[in-house]
């Protein structure tokens, strides 16, 4: 339980940091696609008897790469959608061939409080560190290329490369969060707190800090609720994030 809690804390910090840029840069759909695609990797790894984390990592990278490449040729949302369904279809094929207990699959999809080992925790910590360092060291370029790509190009930034790097960061953050919140809801943990923080605070650095704080609060309350009720963690992450967003929106509008 302590390990799960530590893993969730790591996931929340990274989701807060990365999620802020996902929202600012308008990468909501790619983030969702990468997370869903990763599920296929986990089922594939289970089928082959490999470590699910390996499958998660390779497929979320595959998804990020697919979106980055296809996006240059096609309308962005179409490219993302096609990558998403391809990976999910592979997942459905893997699931149909797996004879293991369905509950494990559902756990991967929607999150479960299954034990996270010490070894895994170290690995997750390393991924978290890399994600945070990358995003924080590229803070200004990432922000500038999102807000006005032309100015960024004028200043000599490689916008295409930045976009690709950021997709890889999303993939890493996704891999990290899935063991706790599940593939389908990693995305809620990234989007919800960041969207709320951006509504409340204008300064980017402060908004990011608030987004991390909210993600932590969200992850902790969700885990506590899941522990108390025995329901899937994903349910609490999804609905709490949704309610938080709707309430903030309504409050901002009524003022």
């Amino acid at each position, binding site marked *: 339980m302590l390990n799960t809690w530590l893993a969730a804390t790591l996931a929340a910090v990274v989701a807060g940091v990365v999620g802020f840029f996902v929202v600012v840069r308008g990468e*909501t*759909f790619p983030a969702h696609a990468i997370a869903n695609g990763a599920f296929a990797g986990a089922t594939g790894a289970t089928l082959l008897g490999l470590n699910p984390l390996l499958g998660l990592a390779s497929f979320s990278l595959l998804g990020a790469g697919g979106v980055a490449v296809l996006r240059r040729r096609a309308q962005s949302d179409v490219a993302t*959608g096609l990558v998403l*369904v391809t990976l999910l279809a592979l997942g459905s094929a893997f699931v*149909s*061939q797996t004879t293991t207990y369905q509950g494990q699959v559902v756990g991967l999809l929607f999150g479960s409080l299954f034990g996270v080992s010490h070894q895994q925790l170290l690995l997750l910590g390393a991924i978290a560190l890399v994600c945070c360092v990358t995003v924080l060291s590229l803070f200004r370029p990432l922000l500038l290329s999102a807000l006005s790509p032309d100015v960024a190009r004028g200043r000599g930034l490689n916008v295409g490369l930045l976009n690709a790097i950021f997709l890889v960061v999303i993939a890493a953050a996704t891999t990290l969060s899935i063991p706790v919140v599940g593939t389908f809801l990693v995305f*809620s943990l990234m989007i919800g707190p960041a969207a709320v923080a951006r509504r409340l605070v204008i300064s980017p650095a402060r908004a990011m800090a608030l987004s991390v704080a909210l993600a932590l609060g969200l992850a902790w309350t969700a885990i506590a609720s899941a522990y108390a009720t025995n329901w899937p963690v994903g349910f609490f992450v999804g609905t709490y994030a*949704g309610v938080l967003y709707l309430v903030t929106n309504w409050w901002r509008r009524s003022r």
Partner: protein
Amino acid sequence: MMKWLFEPGLVASSPVAHAIFAGAAVALLSAVTGFFVLLRRQAFAGHALTDVATTGGAAASLWSLTPLLGFVVGAVTGASALSVAGDERVRERDVATGVILGIATGCSALFLYLTSTSTANTGVAQQVLFGSVFDVSTSTVALVVLISLALVTLTLAVARPLMVTSLVPAIAAARGERTRLLGWFFMLVMAATVALSALITGAVLSTALLVGPAASAQRLTARPPRAIALAALLGLFATTLGVILAYDSFYWRSSGTGLPVSFFIVIIIVAQYAVAGRMHRIRRSN
């Protein structure tokens, strides 16, 4: 070749015939809807609707209702929520869509969990998410075909104003078109499309049929009527061949575990898209 494609009993099998009929109807509807989805850049909204439809399907399985009812109610609820949350700016719209999608997915998680703990139906998650077209009954097929044809007619009837609103909303509004009403109408059509194809491909993969054939067609022709017709043909090909291959796949290995229909349909659609892209580039370079 024929023997390889048609395993024994394929033609005589009524589940296969049902699946092919329902698949054809859904492919036609998806082609018409998909064309406008691309025009309006609503692929993400379309995908979010599939997730909300999943929630409906999961709720239906929890209360032992027919999945179609669940898919439809879920998708229509989602469509209303998305219309209300709709924002002019794409980024804000995407975030709102994402949050609604998150709530829906969270609820699916709960419903599927409750179903798997309260009944012996352990395969339910897979069924809702990835489809079970061979279980569709005759009356459901008839219903699917009827609704599809009605929606196709309705959408084509407003095709012109819908196109103008999608491309240049300001001009459409100035010409007295009711942009909001049309947007809301289209969201509902999209919801119905997604709900119907959820029966065939499973809720999560409805996006493939919605976006794929239309995107391939768009690469091959610029004229709207042709693009819609071509998308319908491509979709029809994908669903029919997908159903046949899925049926055959039960015979490929001695263990008798086939591959899902949705898997084949998506692979065919993606292959079509790749080929269409190639042809597009060859033609452009000539």
